[in-house]
């Protein structure tokens, strides 16, 4: 058992490491591919050489990130099998389909037209090249769509049923999986946040380039394109962020409670802006809060009740309609989960004995109790609570950084259109440059909220992490974890160094000339 816990912990660490590193590059490629496609469209329409040079400059930075994004992406696909093999079998009938569709519809498109985008300038017509650039951008977003459908399904499992004969979950409604409201919201939230990230990156790098004065016009043109895409992206990100809060309140209320460090909720619940979580005291200290803010955010109703962690453990929850009800406590869920598992054992025994009466009795008990199957692996309700402090801080960092970035994008557009002389000031440039790490922190924090907040579930309420792992030793996973850590550190160092050099090249010589 101790080894199992260690295997689970190291497998979680390894997956978290890979996902965090992968997420450094994915939003940038999503956003910058769109920015480049827009820039190339301008070039195609104007035939202006300055736009061609601008496109080629940003394409180099795109390619560097794309390569390392691809490298880290394959690891995640493999790790579902190597580290979460039980998961792969238990829900592979549902989860595998989006992954395969992603490969067929998105990856081949990206891979094929990526080559045209970079090496096809003299081999294909300008129109075909432009189409290729757009197809790469579309392919990147299509890839995000299918992977987020898969991810959303883990957090809000729909369109499935449990088959006791095979001891696994099977798909019953593909459209329910593919068009799940959680998936659609997640897709738009993630993709448009990618636009924001790439835009802030482009603006920041443009500030570096502008500082040398040789490519000032290219920098300003880039800020204009990126600024608009970033601002549109930010508006959508905030809109879908609001949608996420409402959905999380409905389908993952424990995650919402952890995001706010809320242990006991109340009617007209405040929204914490800043505070320090005290997990021992089960409270948030030194907080600055917005009156009734969380009720408005979660339910769009200032006087609604928002359950806290202890409320949920005690069985006080919200209905999908937003009504407060007394429902199944976590202690009862554990009992129900264990009853479902016992029914499954009985089913197996009856099947082997050929006892039809016992079989149908077991099936009816499985159906009645399966909703909380995963709780049967727990011994206490606390095991079903995610890490509160990490989720809380990640959420608040994301919100604060997001607020700053909205302001930043508005000011950037204002400066470049209305006060271009300000763009030449050191202060403006330094703000632009220093905003680059802010947008990455915001993006990673968002991902941490989504993934840490749903712990300990791989599939919400159905399969906790300890039942999802592979039969490998903790030492094996520990070794590969450190190998990944070393490889990632080495590759990220090289990647940053190459980027800095490319930006220096862009700064020190007149690209347009």
């Amino acid at each position, binding site marked *: *058992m101790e080894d*199992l816990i260690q295997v689970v912990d190291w497998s979680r660490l390894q997956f978290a490491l890979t996902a965090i590193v992968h997420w450094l590059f994915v939003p940038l490629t999503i956003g910058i591919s769109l920015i480049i496609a827009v820039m190339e469209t301008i070039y195609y329409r104007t035939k202006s050489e300055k736009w061609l040079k601008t496109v*080629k400059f940003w*394409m*180099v930075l795109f390619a560097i990130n*794309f*390569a*390392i994004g*691809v*490298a880290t*992406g*394959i*690891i995640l*696909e*493999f790790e*579902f099998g*190597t580290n*979460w*093999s*039980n998961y*792969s*079998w*238990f829900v*592979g*009938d549902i*989860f*595998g*389909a989006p*992954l*395969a569709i992603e*490969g*067929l519809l998105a*990856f*081949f498109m*990206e*891979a094929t037209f990526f*080559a*045209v985008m*970079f090496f*096809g300038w003299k*081999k*294909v017509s300008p129109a075909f090249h432009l189409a290729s650039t757009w197809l790469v951008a579309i392919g990147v977003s299509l890839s995000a769509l299918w992977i987020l459908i898969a991810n959303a399904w883990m957090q809000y499992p729909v369109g499935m049923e449990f088959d006791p004969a*095979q*001891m696994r979950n*099977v*798909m*019953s409604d*593909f459209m329910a999986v593919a068009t799940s409201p959680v998936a659609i919201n997640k897709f738009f939230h993630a993709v448009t946040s990618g636009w924001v990230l790439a835009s802030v990156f482009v603006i920041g790098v443009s500030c570096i380039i502008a500082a040398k004065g040789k490519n000032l016009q290219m920098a300003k043109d880039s800020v204009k394109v990126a600024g608009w895409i970033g601002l549109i992206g930010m508006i959508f990100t905030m809109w879908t962020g609001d949608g996420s809060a409402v959905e999380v309140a409905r389908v993952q209320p424990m995650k919402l409670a952890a995001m706010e460090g809320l242990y006991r909720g109340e009617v007209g619940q405040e929204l914490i802006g800043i505070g320090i979580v005290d997990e021992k005291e089960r409270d948030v200290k030194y907080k600055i809060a917005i009156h009734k803010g969380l009720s408005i955010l979660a339910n769009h109703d200032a006087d609604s009740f928002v359950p806290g962690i202890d409320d949920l453990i005690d069985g006080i929850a919200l209905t999908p309609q937003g009504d407060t009800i007394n429902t199944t406590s976590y202690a009862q869920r554990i009992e129900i989960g264990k009853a479902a598992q016992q029914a499954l*054992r009985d089913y197996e025994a009856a099947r082997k004995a050929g006892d039809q009466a016992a079989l149908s009795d077991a099936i009816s008990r499985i159906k009645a109790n399966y909703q909380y199957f995963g709780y049967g*692996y727990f011994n206490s309700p606390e095991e079903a609570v995610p890490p509160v402090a990490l989720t809380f801080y990640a959420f608040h960092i994301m919100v604060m950084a997001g607020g700053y970035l909205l302001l930043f994008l508005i000011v950037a557009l204002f400066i470049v259109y209305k006060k271009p002389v300000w763009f030449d000031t050191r202060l403006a440039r330094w703000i632009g440059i220093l905003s680059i790490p802010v947008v990455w922190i915001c993006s990673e924090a968002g991902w941490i909220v989504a993934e840490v907040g749903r712990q300990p579930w791989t599939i919400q309420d159905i399969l906790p992490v300890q*039942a999802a*792992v*592979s*039969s490998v*030793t903790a030492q094996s996973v520990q070794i590969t974890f450190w190998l990944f850590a070393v*490889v990632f550190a080495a590759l990220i160092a*090289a990647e940053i*160094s*190459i980027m800095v050099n*490319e930006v220096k090249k862009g700064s020190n010589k007149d690209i347009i000339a």
Partner: protein
Amino acid sequence: MEALQIYWWLLIAVLGGALVFMLFVQGGQSLLLETRGSVAKNLIVNSLGLKWELTFTTLVVFGGAFFASFPLFYSTSFGGAYWLWMAILFSFVLQAVSYEFRRKSGNIYGTRTYDAFLLINGVVGCVLIGVAVGILFFGGEFTVTRGNILDGQSPVISVWASTHGLEAICSWKNLLVGFTIFFLARMNAALYLMNSIDDGQKFFDAVRIKALLNGLIFVVLFLALLAVVLTSDGYTVEENGNVVAVPYKYAINLIEMWWILAALLIGVVLVLVGYGLTAFKKEYKGGIWWTGIGTIITIVSLLCDLAYNNTCYMPSLTDPQSSLTIANSSSTEFTLTVMSWVSLLVPVVILYIWYVWSKMNAKPMTPKEIEEDSHSY
């Protein structure tokens, strides 16, 4: 349901065939070891660089399709043969950055390091993917017990031997598969380079010799592998559900499924035609098309021979009853049907890949072209 399982195994086999063909990229990377001069190396890397992502994607889609259609294979093989898959994974991670980084200023580790990464991926990628395929033919040390999911102390249903894939790497039969694929990839790589690079007669002749030498080694290894496979025991599922060993099972399958035998012969003949034309016509550049199509057909027919006719496509050496078949490891009828509708798009994908390939490779690559291209690898 059975038809869907057969259809999906065929798709997996086609993807597997395409992957083995596309491993010419890895084969080409392994040729860097014996290539002298930075111009020649850059030519090879840039020519392969047009295709590396396609190979990478084919591997990812092969894995994704296997996951979607036969999830028990995915969970058993990946979760069990941990070290084998991790070694493959690391080699491909190194490859993915190497093309883009190798000649970029500020890459910290220098061009030679990234070329070494490409070399590692070229050798390790081919050989170990071959070892993974070898497990399908010659079995692995695993058990599958679905009821384990209810054991809170040890809930994993697929359990592998404690060596976790290292034993598979040490098996000479698996290594035979690995090195056969390796030399096939090297031969195909040399033929591809003959077709796609224009750097004078000296370069062409040098690559042609590589094609012929590697092709010769491949033919010898392939014949040995075929002999081993066809004389090996396979496992079959009897009507009562029991799994039993059957001597010469793969040979019997070929006799009982004549169309697979015919496809295998056609595939082998095509490979030999490509090799022969290259050997006997000094200026011939089209060998890659013959051997490429032959490679795909041969691999598809071998993978079909492996799984059809009630054959266990991944036998368990520990507990034969745990062996995987296309019937006991597949997704449900519903999922396979949904996926089959999606698979109707495969011809569209093949069409645009072929169109882009023909555009990008319309003219052979020259050293001047690389010099002038600011984004060359």
